């Protein structure tokens, strides 16, 4: 504070232009109140242009001091190109576990270059009225899950499962990755595949497909041509009972649905099994290596790792959960339900994002196609798994 005669102004680059008001009204004032002498400006770009605009600004030396980081290869390439500084030594980095840091660390985990901000959690959102009418309770095992679907189908007033396969990605993201973590035991299976110790044809990776193969009959007429917005509307209009979800749906659903919603986590194979959830790292904040005010930037980033920021951010944007180990209590009941699973289950990210989505064919996009095929019944679970393994082995040395 000794030489801070003039205020320092920091600029944040971001793709989250939806969050502009939250940053301006809640987050930045809270920081500035505690750190006189540092002013912060949130300057977002449109999401689709963010990557190219940011790259151009970084090359030209006009980028902001703080850079919002996309997970994995997007940020890793910025770090490798020398645009992002290491931040792993910040005091508050101790508040983040290895999964939280994985999105913004080098492959070997030796360097971390962004402070994790938020993740999205997968599970199922359900219509409480529909459950009451069909006389079913929240399922905890896979068998109960299918019994619930069957009961709702028999009741006939609701489509049991609100999902389509026209856009294909839901089948992988809300289908395969959502239910799969329980089979391949989260990080254990994911790391084993990256290390080349486990193949995608292993029963743990085939079983989620086998479960998906049974979803089709519960998904309502013409689900083959049902798109993602169709599924959202179908659920919020009260025509479907269960929605395979990502937590980012929460604020949208809160605004649209006029019935009471609940959430349940991915059912386990047998009662009492250890549970896992897909808690996918999504957004982080890093430091532009070329910034003129590195100390002020570090002060801000350290604050991003604090409990206060975690609480502010998560409660301003229900569904985007803080990645820190702080115990954040959420005011939104649905969001609280989602985040509550962290205490009961082990977190893991989507399996095909780190390292495995680097080559061609791209594992993430391939999972979209095969998961949708399996639900439609045009591919057997075994065929799908074999296809994935063949694709991965074609470019990934540890799997050859």
């Amino acid at each position, binding site marked *: 504070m000794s030489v801070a005669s003039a205020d320092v102004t920091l600029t944040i680059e971001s793709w989250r232009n939806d969050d502009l008001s939250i940053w301006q009204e809640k987050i930045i004032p809270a920081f500035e109140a505690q750190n006189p002498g540092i002013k912060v400006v949130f300057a977002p770009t449109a999401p689709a242009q963010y990557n190219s605009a940011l790259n151009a600004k970084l090359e030209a030396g006009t980028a902001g001091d703080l850079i919002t980081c996309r997970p994995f290869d997007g940020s890793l390439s910025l770090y490798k190109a020398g645009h992002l500084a290491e931040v792993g030594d910040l005091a508050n980095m101790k508040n983040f576990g290895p999964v939280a840091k994985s999105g913004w660390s080098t492959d070997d985990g030796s360097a971390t270059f962004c402070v994790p901000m938020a993740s999205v959690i997968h599970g199922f959102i359900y219509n409480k009225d529909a459950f009451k009418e069909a006389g079913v309770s929240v399922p905890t095992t896979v068998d109960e899950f299918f019994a619930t679907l069957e009961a709702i189908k028999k009741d006939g007033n609701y489509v049991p499962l609100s999902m389509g396969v026209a856009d294909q990605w839901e089948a992988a993201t809300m289908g395969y990755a959502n239910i799969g973590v329980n089979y391949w035991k989260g990080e254990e299976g994911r790391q084993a595949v990256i290390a080349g110790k486990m193949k995608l044809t292993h029963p743990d990776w085939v079983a989620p497909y086998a479960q998906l193969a049974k979803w089709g009959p519960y998904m309502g007429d013409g689900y083959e*041509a049902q798109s993602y917005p169709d599924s959202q509307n179908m659920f919020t209009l009260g025509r479907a009972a269960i929605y395979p979800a990502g937590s980012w749906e929460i604020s949208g659903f809160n605004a649209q649905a006029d019935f009471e919603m609940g959430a349940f986590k991915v059912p386990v194979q047998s009662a009492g099994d250890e549970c896992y959830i897909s808690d996918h790292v999504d957004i982080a904040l890093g430091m532009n290596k070329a910034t003129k005010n590195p100390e002020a930037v570090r002060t801000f980033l350290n604050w991003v790792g604090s409990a206060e920021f975690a609480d502010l951010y998560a409660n301003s944007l229900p569904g985007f959960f803080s990645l820190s180990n702080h115990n954040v209590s959420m005011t939104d009941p649905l969001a609280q339900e989602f985040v509550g699973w962290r205490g009961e289950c082990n977190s893991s990210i989507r399996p095909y994002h780190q390292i495995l989505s680097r080559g*061609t*064919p*791209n594992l993430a996009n391939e999972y979209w196609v095969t998961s949708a*095929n399996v639900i439609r019944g045009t591919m057997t679970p075994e065929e799908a798994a074999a296809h994935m393994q063949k694709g991965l082995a074609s470019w990934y040395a540890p799997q050859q």
Partner: protein
Amino acid sequence: MTQEQATSSRRPIRWHIGVFLAPAVLVYSTFMIFPLFGTLQLSLFTTSEQQTYFVGLDNFRTLFGDPRWSGAFWNALVNNLWFFVIHMLVQNPIGILLAAVLSNPKLRMRGFYRSAIFVPTIMSFVIVGFAWKLILSPLWGIAPDMLKAVGLKFLFAPYLGKEEYALTTLALISVWQYVGIPMMLIYAALLSIPQEVIEAGEVEGVTGFSAFWKIKLPLILPAIGIISILTFVGNFNAFDLVYAAQGALAGPNYATDILGTFLYRTFFGFQMQLGDPNMGSAVAMIMFLIILTGVCIYLFGIQMRMTRYQL
């Protein structure tokens, strides 16, 4: 001999040809020829670790030799051929039929029909793709209800979501959009047939349908040839409708993947997949060669042998 030389030496240099051609040649070279060679050049290199290496025809070897690449390529090519076949079998005959009907002077409100059928042609792909997606939606679409109203509900299926129907459905949507083009071209060709020819036919007793078959059709064959080649070039460059309706992954299970979407995914990447401009250029080159071959077959095989009637 000497006389010829004398003639040519006396002939002035015709500067004006060069002057008048120059703007077109310049613009065309800058925006068409030069990028074409740029693409060819790009397809001979590969990029690894931010370094570019010359690899000769290796990208093409990967495209045809690597079973994953060649599988995707042949799938796209076969789909593209089917897309073209549907247009040839459905769009052009319907276009000719509509033109024949519209050119009948006894038909009332001809102008209205002509405009109504032509309007979709000037609409954006995005709107057409989105509108048809909605019409055919099993949840909110009007197609299921309309079929139900006439007792044909059993005919309805989620057409855009089934591998066996999706491509044909998209091709028919494209036909719906573009049937106005052949209609207009053939309509113009039909109008240009002199009345004397028709009347001469009538004197010989050739009227009605046989007049169309024996007199008009041979006279509009060159127009049909032009339409076919335009359809061919348009179809093999198609991309937007599939992208608007089914996304870059051309679902379900790549059933609607045509060369254009395959090129887009390869060149620019999609979602998690990073783009590969070098492989993309290789795909673009192959597309160029396919279209070039098709156009050459047409020009040398058909156009030059086509009989033209002096009217």
